[in-house]
Each structure stands twice: as structure tokens, then as C-alpha cells.
């Protein structure tokens, strides 16, 4: 059975699909794979499977735990003192129940196709904060959830996954480059060490494990790489960490499955894929969970897979089967990508089944944000309300644009022209988020909440103005429209009160508007 060694030497390094290191080992013994081990158990103690028996510090990296393998338990017969050891050296000897004994090192072997056991799977009521507004605020994913990012080529799957790897609030990132480009891997390797982990402020690479099987590397290892990566993720989960696995791209994995299956002479199913494609996909996505680990800690594995459907057609087998298992579906859209509107998540095709479960979490975030505006007294969850308002608006926009194509924009009633104006602001100011902007590459939940409220307030004011007889064109001509459209670029995390200033300016601008007479409008 194909297995891999998981241990403290994984963080910060790059491996191939069978988890063999791709970087050449250094000769310098001071830098080599030495780990500082501090025992936390003593002789005579009984250790259950998956228990923590020590702390490990790799040179220049964070503290990890030494775990008893999930399939071993027994009484400690001997344990190494505090010392520098390699990750394959025996540090613990356990006497098993059957009278034999077994030796345990910092790393252990695990078959990649078997999920690592846990005490219990837990329901998830908090999101994996991704730092992307369109995802967190409109289509959130739960910690321990599963999401898919389908999109034709050039729609920004890889950039989005990389943004998530950089900005999401997970403890450990496992980044799987499966059948994709070598230059992208080189880019990640070069960029990540220079970036900061948003959680700890240390180098981003320290929380990252990269598994790379680029498109020109052997196909059979590509098929295995997805299991290697998820096993690594589960290993860190078992230490009580929240892990996010980005798999780019699951289609290449499915193609490897197809290629291997074809060579075995198996009967091809839909699209040439073997008939067991959907159960394999289920096996993979079902390994996502928030759990109580064997040693009682809370950890999670969140799975995010990109899909590369041939000619961007979502009805193909990999996309349609994946849809059956994931709870967040972030459809990328080539029309948006062509206009360089990133992330090109299409709000009408995307969905999140986790949204309701996460409403309470979001309500708390909104409660922390000061507001000048009187809250509408509907008594409902404000985030859910705003989210629904935005989604309805975007849906309405699509409908009106279809109509405008037939009768012309000018022929639409004022109220509908206003809807189009508001929807455009939601798109430009809120949904668009540049992955390369130093200000906006990630967005905290607090900033998201402020922006969402500000835009909702704009819509309210605009509607009030329309009731007073103000035309949408008058509103579009307001000076404040440009700072509103650019707020994501202009107002960064460090000056959140800028939103209040902008809101005040917006209120003044609306207050100063007077209705035009019919003649002046015609002129």
C-alpha cells in the first residue's frame, strides 16, 4: 500500500506527489533535518493512539508536537531526553498490550488512501476566513468545509487559490500543484518566504507545505499526489491545527485517473473517465472535517479544489460530480475575467450551503463594528440581510441588462436604472479585489462588514433620493461616486475610520441633491 512518512520536517518544504523532497538536501549538519525534541511524557505512562508525547522545534520554525501514530498505543518503556534528533530516529519505545514493543520516531508512516482516525467529527459554526470579500461575505466556507473553484482557462483559478493560500486564516496550508505549471510552483517558492503569515506575522512559508506534481512529471504520481497532500493535512489536523488544503487542479488528477485506468484496459464511462470517478471524488472530499482528534484537541481540514472543465463547460463529469460533494461552489466566469474583473466569481452561479450555519459568527463581527446609521429594526441577522440584499441586487442586474439589450438602457424606468447603478457599485467597490494590490489583497471581516454597510447605506440613500425625484444620472454624476468605487483600494486595514469619513461625505452629497425639472433633464 502506498504510504508516506509524515513528521515535523514537512513544514516549509516542497515535495513531489509521493512526498519525496524536491529540494536537494543540504550538506550542512546544522541546517539539515535536525529537530529539537522535548519530551512531555515519562516512562511508565500509558499513551493512547494519536497522543502527544513531546514538543518538536525545527530550526527557525514554530513548535510542533510529536504524535504517537494513530494505530499504536501502549505504555512508555523508554523516551529520549531533551535533545536534537533526526525525524527518523527512535525517540520513544512503547510496550504494547500484546507484550511486544514498538519504536516510535518523530515521523511515522501512514498509507495515503486511508483517512486518519479521529474521535469525533464536529459540526462547524465558524468560517475559514479567506480574506476575499466575495467569498467571505457572500459565499463563505466553514472551517472543515469543502469548496470547489471551477473555471475555464484564464479565469484566475490559480491566482484565487494562491490568494487564499496567502491570506486565509488557517494555521497550516498544504498547497498541491497537481498537473499544473512549473513556473507557478517556482513563483510560490519565491514569493511565500517573503510574505507574512496573517496569523503569526512570521514568514508565510513556515506554515506551508507544497506538494508539486507539475504537468510534465509522471502521471501515476499525479494520481497519488492528491492523497499524499490530504494525508499531510490530516497529520497537522491531528496536532490540533486548522489546515487548509488547496488542490490545483482536481481535473488533472481525474485525468491521471483516466489515463491510468485506460492503460489498465478498464471500461470507460462518461467522458472516458472510469465509472468510479465519482466515488473517488467523494472519498477525497469526505476527508474534509472539523474534528476532535484522538488526543482531544480540536482541528480541521478544509478542502478547496479547483476544476478545469474542458472549454469551460460545467456539465462535464468532474464538475458535476464534485458539485454533489462540496458545500461551497465558486464558479469563475470568463466574461468577468475578460474584463480583468478579478476574482471572477460569478455571483449568480456560485453558492454556499454553509452560509446559514455561519450567520451567528458573522453577527458577532457586525456587533463589533461601530455604526452611525440606525439599524433597520427587522430583528433579523444583519449579515444575512445584507447578503440577501446584495445577491438580489446582482440577480436583478442580470435581468435588467437582458432587458436593456432589447429596449435600450434609457428606456428603462428610473427605478431600474438606479438598480443598475447600485449593482455596478457592488461589483466595482465590493466584489472586485486585486490579488496584487498591497492594500486590498486580503480583507478582514471587520473591513468587509464596514464596506457592506456603507454600500447598503448608499443604496438606501439613493432610493430615498429617487423618492424625492432625483434621477439616477444625477446620482451617478456625484463627486463621491469615484471614492466610493475605489474605497477598496483607498481605505486600507490601518485606517478603517476612513469609511466613516466617506459615509459622512456621501450623506452630505445626497442631502445637497435637488430634483431637476423636466426641462433641465431634457436639456
Amino acid at each position, binding site marked *: 500500500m502506498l504510504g508516506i512518512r509524515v513528521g515535523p520536517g514537512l513544514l516549509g518544504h516542497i515535495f513531489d506527489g509521493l512526498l519525496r523532497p*524536491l529540494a536537494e538536501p543540504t550538506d550542512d549538519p546544522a541546517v539539515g533535518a535536525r529537530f529539537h525534541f522535548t519530551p512531555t511524557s515519562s516512562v511508565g505512562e500509558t499513551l493512547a493512539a494519536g497522543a502527544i508525547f513531546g514538543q518538536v522545534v525545527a530550526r527557525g520554525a514554530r513548535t510542533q508536537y510529536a504524535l504517537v501514530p494513530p494505530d499504536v498505543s501502549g505504555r512508555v518503556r523508554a523516551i529520549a531526553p531533551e535533545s536534537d534528533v533526526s525525524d527518523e530516529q527512535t525517540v520513544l519505545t512503547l510496550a504494547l498490550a500484546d507484550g511486544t514493543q514498538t519504536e516510535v520516531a518523530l515521523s511515522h508512516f501512514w498509507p495515503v488512501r486511508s483517512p486518519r482516525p479521529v474521535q469525533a467529527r464536529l459540526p462547524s459554526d465558524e468560517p475559514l476566513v479567506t480574506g476575499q470579500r466575495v467569498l467571505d461575505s457572500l459565499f463563505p466556507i466553514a472551517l472543515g468545509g469543502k469548496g470547489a473553484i471551477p473555471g475555464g482557462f*484564464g479565469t484566475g483559478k490559480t491566482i484565487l487559490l494562491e490568494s487564499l493560500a496567502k491570506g486565509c486564516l488557517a494555521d497550516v496550508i498544504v498547497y498541491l500543484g497537481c498537473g499544473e505549471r512549473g*513556473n507557478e510552483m517556482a513563483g510560490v*517558492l519565491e514569493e511565500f518566504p517573503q510574505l507574512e503569515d496573517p496569523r503569526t506575522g512570521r514568514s508565510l512559508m513556515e506554515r506551508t507545505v507544497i506538494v508539486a506534481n507539475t504537468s510534465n512529471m509522471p502521471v501515476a504520481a499525479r494520481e497519488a499526489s492528491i492523497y499524499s497532500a490530504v494525508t499531510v493535512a490530516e497529520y497537522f489536523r491531528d496536532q490540533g491545527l486548522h489546515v487548509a488544503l488547496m488542490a490545483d487542479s482536481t481535473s488533472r488528477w481525474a485525468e491521471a485517473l483516466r489515463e491510468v485506468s485506460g492503460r489498465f484496459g478498464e471500461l470507460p464511462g462518461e467522458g472516458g473517465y472510469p465509472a468510479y470517478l465519482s466515488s473517488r471524488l467523494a472519498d477525497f472530499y469526505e476527508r474534509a472535517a472539523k474534528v476532535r482528534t484522538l488526543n482531544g484537541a480540536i482541528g480541521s481540514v478544509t478542502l478547496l479544489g479547483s476544476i478545469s472543465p474542458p472549454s469551460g463547460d460545467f456539465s462535464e463529469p468532474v464538475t458535476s460530480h464534485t458539485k454533489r460533494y462540496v458545500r461551497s461552489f465558486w464558479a469563475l466566469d470568463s466574461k468577468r475575467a475578460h*474584463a480583468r474583473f478579478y476574482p471572477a466569481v460569478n455571483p449568480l452561479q456560485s453558492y454556499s450551503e454553509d452560509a446559514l450555519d455561519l450567520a451567528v459568527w458573522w453577527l458577532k463581527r457586525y456587533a463589533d463594528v461601530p455604526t452611525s446609521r440606525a439599524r433597520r429594526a427587522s430583528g433579523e441577522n444583519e449579515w444575512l440581510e445584507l447578503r440577501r440584499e446584495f445577491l438580489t441586487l446582482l440577480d436583478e442586474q442580470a435581468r435588467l441588462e437582458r432587458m436593456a439589450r432589447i429596449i*435600450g438602457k*434609457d428606456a428603462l424606468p428610473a427605478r431600474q436604472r438606479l438598480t443598475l447603478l447600485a449593482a455596478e457599485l457592488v461589483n466595482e467597490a465590493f466584489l472586485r479585489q486585486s490579488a496584487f494590490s498591497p492594500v486590498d489583497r486580503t480583507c478582514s471581516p471587520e473591513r468587509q462588514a464596514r464596506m457592506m454597510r456603507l454600500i447598503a447605506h448608499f443604496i438606501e440613500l439613493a432610493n430615498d433620493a429617487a423618492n424625492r425625484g432625483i434621477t439616477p444620472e444625477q446620482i451617478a454624476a456625484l463627486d463621491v461616486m469615484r471614492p466610493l468605487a475605489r474605497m477598496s483600494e483607498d481605505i486600507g486595514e490601518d485606517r478603517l475610520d476612513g469609511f466613516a469619513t466617506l459615509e459622512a461625505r456621501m450623506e452630505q452629497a445626497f442631502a445637497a441633491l435637488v430634483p431637476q425639472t423636466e426641462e433641465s433633464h431634457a436639456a
Partner: protein
Amino acid sequence: MQPRVTVHDAAVRLEGPLLFMHRTLDVGLNEAVSVAGRDGAPRLGRVAALDEDLVTIEMLEPASGLALDGTVVRFLGEPIEFGVGPALLGRIFDGVGRVIDGGPPLPVKERLRVDGVPLNPVKRATPRSFIETGITAIDLMNSLVRGQKLPIFSGGGLPHDRIAVEIAANARLRGEEAGNFAIIFAGIGVPYTTAEYFRRSLEQSGALERSALFLNLASDSSTQRLLTPRFALTAAEYLAFECGKHVLVITTDLTNYCEALREVAGAKGEVPGRKGYPGYMYSDLATLYERAGCVHGAKGTLTQLPILTMPSDDIGHPIPDLSGYITEGQIVLSRELDRAGVYPPVNVLPSLSRLMKDGTGKGHTHPDHPALSSQLYAAYARSTQARLLASVVGEDGLAETDRRYLAFGTAFERKLVSQAQPRTLEDSMDAGWQLLRMLSTAELSRLSDAQIAEHLTHDRVAEAAP
């Protein structure tokens, strides 16, 4: 090297370019063979498949005249190799690396396997340096970066050959590396006239001395076609990673390569995939495209500009589709623009350069280059919407803003995309700023206030003042 072994009269079947023979000795996959028929003339081939009883040999030269009896197969005991040397620049080769320019044989410095070896991602350096092609739609909107693979998606009858030749003649590096540039040109299954056009144009523009041509003609065997890009890339890798040159590999036409792949896979009796192409076409194309790159410690770089014609202009066809998933972007040519007389007819909306962000902007080109490109994209996308609207309700039915965008879209195609002469990046950027003046500054949400002040309003005031 293993001893060469000669086998007589072991052939059992001949099918198109494939020769099946009894497996009487231990040979390895992809080893080179030489097959002689009764006429005694040797033909190059390679071991394509092995099973318990049979060895399948792929003939790289026409198999006509071979018979089951009297066929002599010599196993050369080595993979197919290409003898390369720095003198290959300025020379012309056939599809399998034999000199065809009538000159002396190439002085060989090294023999390299044409398959290449997959490059370990750890050894790759991130591509960061801008290459100026002289084409605004590429330089300004979808910049090419050293080490990138950026295909041109074209269609039958579109001027991709002319674009390729002009890029070969005008492409230059900026800065001190400018002189250290070489071009490898691979014609895969091209008609004789096209091959001649390439040769003559390169000679006339003086680019031939920094180029090497590999020409596999449409009349050459399809098995040979599978090797042509590999020979060209082997030469390019040698020049880039051994001789320290910045090499641009232009291959045309990858569609012919994929057709040959389908033909040979069919002859081997493999299970066909989408549209009859083999299921491994993605992996196979990746072994070509992924040979582009920069390597830590090597001075040179290998950039690829493959050209492929989309069958019936369908970007969803397996050939462009799979290519797009491997390459770092694509430049898409449009028949509509071509008909409207726009040259080069680049449709910028579906075009994309994934590495542009790494090779443009501050420290690479101009600090405002990325923002300008992004703003032009947004405005042009908006103008195509206005055009759609106008096609239904007529131009008069449009709102003022939409009318402005409509005019912008036309000007964008006529003045920015269309060009008679190569432009420097600076000229291209000037043309871009000029166009944006057609729109009101309030609309330009992709530009910062400082950028608007520096490039747009400032000059406006200056122009108005005198």
C-alpha cells in the same frame, strides 16, 4: 554505449508508419533504430511500444518500400539524440535535426536527448524580465516575459505567419542583455511555401544569423512531426542553459503536431479520447510547453511562442483548450478584426498573459504600466457591451456615456491594436493614455488620482493653456 544490434527478418506487420516485429532482444522504450529495406536505404525510427511478443517501431521517415521480408533493423542502443553546438545559429535543419541549408555539417559539441528531462520546480527561477515584441496588443496589454510560454491562438487564413516573422525580426530585450538574444524557429508540418516565406523573411530582416530554423514540411512523415519541436527545444535548451543566451522559440503550427499525435495514436490502436485525440494529449503537450523557463544558476532563459490554428475558430476545441490550460496565457487573433483591416488582429479580451504581473510595473517596465493596461481592459470590455447594445437599439438610442465608450472601442482597435510599424513600449503607453482621454476621468476607477493627474489631466490643462 551499448553495442549496436542488427536483427534480420523479424518484421511481422507493417501499418502506416508503424513496424511491428518479434521481440527477440531486450531493448528500451524510445531507443533509436535504423531500418533498412531491400533497397538498403536506412530509415530512422524509434521504439514506440513493447509488449511480451512484439516491438513496435515508429518510422520517422516514409515506410514505403519496406516489406516484411528482407527488412533489417539496427538497434542503436541509445535514445534519440541531437548533436548540438554553438554554431547552430544561422543554420537550417529538417524536422529531425539534419542540416538542409547546403552548408557543412554542424560542429557537434554535445549530444543531448531530444526528450529532455522534466525540470524540477525547485530549480526554476521565477520569470521576471520583459521582452519587447514591438506589438502593442502584446507589450502593453499582455506582456511577454522571459521564460514564459505564450501561444498565439489563430485560425486558418489569419496572418499568424506574418506576426511570427515580425516578432522574430523585432523582438528585443531591454537593458544590458539586449544583444544576447537568439531565436529558434520550428515549422511543424508547414507547406513548402510557408517554409520558404519564413526562410526568406528571416534572411531579409537579417535575423537569420541569430536564428536557427527547423523545418518539417507538410509532406514529411507525421511521426517525424512529433519529433520536430523536441529537436528545436533541445537546441534551444542547449543555447539557453549551456551557452547563456535568451532564446525565443517560435513553433508553428502546433495543430499539425496534435493531428500527427492523433494519427499515430490511432495507428497504434489506442483508445481515443475527446474528438479522437489520445487521452494523454494534455501530458504530451505539457512535455513540450513545460520546457520553457528560467533556471537558477543559468544565465540564459527559454521563452516559447507557439502558434496554433484553432480548428473552425473554436477556442473550445481540445487543441487550444488543453494548450490554454498548460501555457501561461494566450494571444487570440480575431477574424472579425482581420476582416476590418486591423493588423495585427489581436482580440485583447480573451487574450491573457499570466506572467505579466511579474515582469511589468515598477522595477521592470513603467510603474503605471499594469494600471494602464487594466484600465484599458475595463474600458474596452465596457465598449463591447455598448456595441452589443447599439446593434439592437441603434447608436442614437444609446446614453451619452455608452456613446463615448462606443467611440473609444473603435479608436482602441484602429489606433492602439492596429499598427503599421513596431512600437516601443513607451510609444504603446503613450497611445494608451491618449485613448483614455476620450473618457471622463470619473469613469477611470482602475487608475489612482495620482496617475490621472500625471498622465491625463495635467496634459489636458497644458494643452488648453496656450
